[in-house]
């Protein structure tokens, strides 16, 4: 062992000691959110997503999507093929999300009428996805360092022991002034999340209705986002989920976006 390596090992030991010594201490808000962010969801995943948009008169609009996800190490790729409604059938959307902090996602859309895969800006994260109550940012993995997290309390919610964490965006003029998340202690799943607008009034609430352990991974299968200010909600159901089935890399290419399902 060289002198430099020995010094490094000693430094590592000194850093680990406090963690070992106070391992039973309360986690911080950041650590809890980091655990949610780091919760393993498998190397790859496929599933059928049904979004039901419900307005105040209970009128419903249904959107069906087949999606593929795969983790390529530093980048997670996702492709969505739109099945219905009829006028968007065969449209596809691809997103490459990078681990690198601060790096924007790359996004492309294929519109069958134009027969062209078009690169789009991923800057519009506050845009609502297909007219639903979910913004693109709600659906993506928001990096924990983008917010300041405070553990408010611990409490039971729907029979589960939860951490209640308040997250305040560091970015000024972000679409939410804060969010409050109820996180199941041993599963690192956000069971409920409240979104507050710039006036600190409740804007939306995300409720997880069903989660399941599939191949050892905790996955959210059914959730609902309701906008209390606009009296509108979106039900999101993920079915036929398959994890670690060896999804081909081809599913994340221009070739497959054009070919469709």
């Amino acid at each position: 062992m060289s002198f430099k390596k020995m010094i490094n090992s000693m430094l590592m030991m000194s850093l680990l000691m406090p963690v070992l010594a106070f391992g039973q201490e309360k986690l911080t808000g950041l650590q809890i959110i980091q655990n949610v962010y780091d919760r393993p969801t498998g190397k790859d995943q496929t599933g059928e997503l049904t979004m039901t948009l419900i307005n105040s008169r209970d009128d419903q609009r249904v959107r069906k999507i087949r999606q593929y996800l795969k983790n390529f190490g530093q980048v997670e790729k996702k492709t969505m093929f739109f099945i219905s409604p009829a006028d968007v059938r065969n449209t596809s959307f691809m997103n490459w999300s990078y681990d690198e902090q601060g790096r924007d996602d790359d996004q492309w859309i294929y519109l069958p009428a134009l027969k062209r895969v078009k690169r789009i800006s991923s800057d519009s994260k506050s845009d609502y996805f297909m007219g639903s109550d979910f913004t693109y940012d709600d659906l993506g993995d928001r990096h924990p360092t983008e917010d300041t997290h405070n553990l408010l309390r611990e409490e039971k919610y729907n029979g589960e022991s939860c951490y209640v964490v308040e997250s305040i965006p560091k970015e000024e003029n972000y679409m939410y002034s804060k969010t409050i998340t109820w996180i199941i202690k041993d599963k690192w799943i956000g069971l409920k999340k409240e979104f507050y607008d710039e006036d600190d009034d409740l804007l939306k609430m995300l409720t997880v209705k069903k989660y399941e352990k599939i191949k050892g991974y905790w996955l959210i299968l059914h959730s609902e986002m309701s906008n209390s200010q606009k009296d509108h909600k979106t039900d999101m159901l993920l079915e036929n989920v398959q994890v670690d089935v060896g999804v081909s890399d081809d599913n994340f290419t221009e070739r497959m976006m054009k070919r469709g399902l």
Partner: protein
Amino acid sequence: MRTKIISLALIALFLTAGYALPQGLTFRGYGRTYLGVLTEDGSYSIQQNTLDLKLEHKRDKTALYFNPYLYQYPDRDINLKLRQAYLDIYFGNIDIRLGKQQIIWGKADGVFITDIISPKDLSEFLLPDFEEIRIGVDAVKLNYYRGDHTFELVWMPRFQPTIFPGAESYWAPKMMAFPMTPTFDYSNATVESKLENSELALKYSALTSVIDFEIMSGYLWDDNPTYHVRKTVEPVTQQLAGITVTPEHHRLSMAGGSFSATLGAWVLRGEGAFYRGKYFNSTNLNLTDGVVIKDYFHYLVGLEYSLWDFKLSGQFIQEAILDYETEIYQDQFQNTATFLASRDFLRETLNLQLFVYYGFNNEDALIRPKLSYDFTDGFEILLGANIFTGNGAGMFEQYDNNDMMYAKVKYSF
């Protein structure tokens, strides 16, 4: 009569589809009714009903796609055609598509620079949806994939030219001016279908985390005819006795490229094509056939940005004739710009859009506002206008009397 029988068969197929579809066959399309009114005198510029069917059958390694469509007008026979009809064969890294197909190249919006494989149907100028403007070409298309890199080879055994509106149409383009009324000779207007007249094009493209780009080349035919002008002179008086105009298509070699990249919130696009040996009309009728052959460059730069929920896009396009001669009918530099602003409302059920073409040379423009509303999923109501403005003899100004308002109602299934 034959068209009517085919139309009836198509309608019967449509009506019985739910009962007779083989497993794996998807059947979709739309019906649309479209009414256009000229603002000048209130006459109808178009009354059209459309049925567009898309039938697709897929297996693991093969697929069939069939897209017939029909246009019905009150004063014309039903127009039944095939937009596309092709077979796909999928190998490991290779896809082959055989048959009538639309082939789209390039990154530009609403402008054709390297996108010249599928010719255009300009029966209604540039007003229909681009899916309806592009004509399917008979072709063999081979794609070889290596990760995110694609090599594409296209062979078109038969040349398909641009479709222009008839002389009686609202959209008939203005011809160049002649000192006397010319006689048209269409004997050379078509290109004989034979192997040596086939077209070949090659493209390499890549989609990467930094940039998307394409590099392409083609040995093609000019989709638009050149008007060869021959004078007849009275032998004794040497006075002009007649002018004969002979439309003729010529070979055209093209090389080009395009790219698209994001710069923060901006999307930057570029596209350019170099054409070798393109024919241009000259105002000097003493030249042989009144034409000259020049190299030609056509390029575009464009930006996209979102501001206050509006999606904004601007493009600058320039056509440049190299080694220019002042007698060439077309300007040395033809500058055009496009502008698009679009915003969704009511959970993406209502869309407001403005698209503008602006020609700098003649200070003319085509302004296209439109409002579309999804009454329910798959049922769209669209109201819009096409406004032509300008001074002089520009591409858009020539239709100054064709300002129109229109409504389209579309049912998709």
